[in-house]
């Protein structure tokens, strides 16, 4: 914990005495942090708490955006309908599948590529190469979705053509319920492996060299080094990255919207699309609000767990 300069009260007094011209900031001499924090706090408060309360309220009404009838109070009926709708659970389950498989694949790929970039890190051009490698994660998510639906088009897409050259039969990708979800996992992994690569790379580079040397002297094989030295040493750092990825996957919307919009059938349905449709296609603001509240509650639970697991240094970086 950093010792604050304020803890020395004598200094604070001298400071305020020295300021003869009473400025705006001097008015807060008892709580000097206030003027710096208050604007952002009020802004965030207004932007999160008010809409949240509003949607809790709206979720208790039969509120339609198109019907001229005044909204009628329905109590918890919206929640009851929601929690008995199989599609909502499909949306949750799909998010689970996407999250778990993406994060595992991203870690394996990221960890391997990180080793590769470390091995060549003393070659100057490798830094530029690394920057180019991480470009996918900066690309607009909706472009990622559109781009891959162009490349993975079952009829004329370049991917099936290239597979054909190697004798692999054409794949249906987004157009079959059996492959659509995995295609989404695939493009998700394409976009975010570079993130875990960067995380793994910085973590691996902070392992002291003598640990490797000691292991070598003891005759350790490469898999011993990975499992006994590297994985335990980078665990905390990687965990932070993984938690961010879990949270981001829970917020997933753009790439599914741009590729399948939940189809074919309900094979790629996710909860954010579900809520989107309720409001902007069926104009059920009340029902959609209930979905939003449930999503918010689940996200809060995940976030609370995340914060518990996050090593403290990660937050107080």
């Amino acid at each position: 914990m950093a010792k604050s300069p304020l803890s020395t009260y004598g200094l604070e007094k001298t400071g305020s005495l020295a300021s003869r011209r009473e400025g705006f900031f001097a008015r807060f001499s008892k709580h000097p942090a206030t003027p710096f924090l208050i604007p952002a706090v009020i802004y965030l408060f207004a932007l999160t708490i008010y809409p949240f309360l509003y949607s809790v309220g709206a979720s208790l009404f039969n509120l339609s955006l198109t019907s001229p009838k005044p909204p009628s109070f329905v109590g918890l009926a919206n929640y009851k309908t929601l929690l008995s709708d199989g599609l909502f659970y499909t949306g949750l389950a799909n998010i689970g599948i996407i999250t778990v498989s993406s994060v595992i694949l991203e870690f394996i790929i990221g960890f391997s590529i990180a080793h590769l970039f470390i091995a060549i890190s003393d070659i100057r051009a490798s830094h530029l190469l690394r920057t180019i490698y991480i470009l996918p994660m900066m690309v607009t998510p909706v472009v990622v979705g559109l781009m891959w639906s162009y490349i993975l088009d079952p009829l004329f897409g370049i991917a099936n053509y290239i597979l054909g050259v190697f004798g692999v039969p054409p794949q249906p990708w987004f157009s079959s319920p059996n492959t659509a979800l995995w295609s989404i996992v695939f493009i998700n992994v394409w976009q975010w492996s570079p993130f875990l690569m960067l995380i793994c790379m910085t973590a691996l580079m902070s392992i002291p060299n003598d640990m490797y040397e000691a292991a070598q002297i003891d005759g350790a094989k490469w898999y011993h080094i990975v499992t006994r030295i590297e994985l335990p040493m980078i665990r905390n750092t990687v965990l932070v990255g993984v938690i961010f990825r879990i949270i981001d996957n829970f917020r997933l919307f753009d790439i599914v919207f741009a590729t399948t919009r939940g189809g074919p059938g309900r094979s790629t349905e996710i909860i954010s699309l579900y809520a989107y449709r309720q409001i902007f296609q069926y104009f059920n603001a009340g029902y959609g609000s209930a979905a939003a509240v449930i999503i918010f509650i689940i996200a809060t639970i995940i976030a609370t767990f995340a914060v518990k697991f996050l090593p403290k240094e990660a937050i107080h970086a």
Partner: protein
Amino acid sequence: MRKVDIKRRLLFLLAAVITLLNIAPLLWVALSSFKTRIEIFSTPPVWIPERWQVQNYIDLFQVNVPYLINSLIVTLVSTAGVLLLSVPAAFGLTAFTFPKKHDLEMWFLSGRMMPPVAAAIPFYLTLRQIKLIDTQAGLILLYVGVGIPLAVWLIASFMRSIHPAIYEAAKIDGCKWDQIFFRIAIPLSSGGIATATIFITIFAWNELLLPLFLTDRFAKTFPVVLTSFQGQTEIAWELMCAGATIQVLPIVILTLFVQKYIVSGLTGGAVK
């Protein structure tokens, strides 16, 4: 010695090939944006367009300049707004001690965990009430709120590395807190502020969900336009490719120019 050298060169070659494969999809889309529709749909595929024609870009610009301007205005103004609120907040969280400070930090951070869809529905209802639906102002208002948590977190992680003794010395010299903030904290954390600026800009430029929900005709941003090529019975891939290139090119240029900030921003919080 030489053996090691050859091995390293081979590894470099491998890394180069993997990198190229990784961005090949982006290159393919950029290449396709110069093709005619016939070239796009032909099998076997036309790799390099026969004639590099810019008709797709002309078609695109004829209709979409207002939406690109929307994107630009909303991105720039909201980034400025985020910084205006976040830099002082990060200073407030790092330079002082006060009760419940940890809770406040967590509250800032938790904003990043909120799924946008859970916020977008209430935002929509709220903006409708205050008549800011389909306006740039409405979008900016919300983008600022979405950006604050990440910006505060990033900037605070840099400001924490400023040694408290520096502030203390300035106090002894008679500096007031606003002077310490402007003359010491901001210059010393300029790297963090730059990193935050880059990320907030890119995220605002990339944002789809909020403008999709909250705009219709006037304040529509370019990412929303991109989704509309799909809506028709036939997908105008050649236009989509050109649009995607326009959307992504500024990000690629920015990323290449400021690469050191991007790496520190992405890993800074996780590693330090």
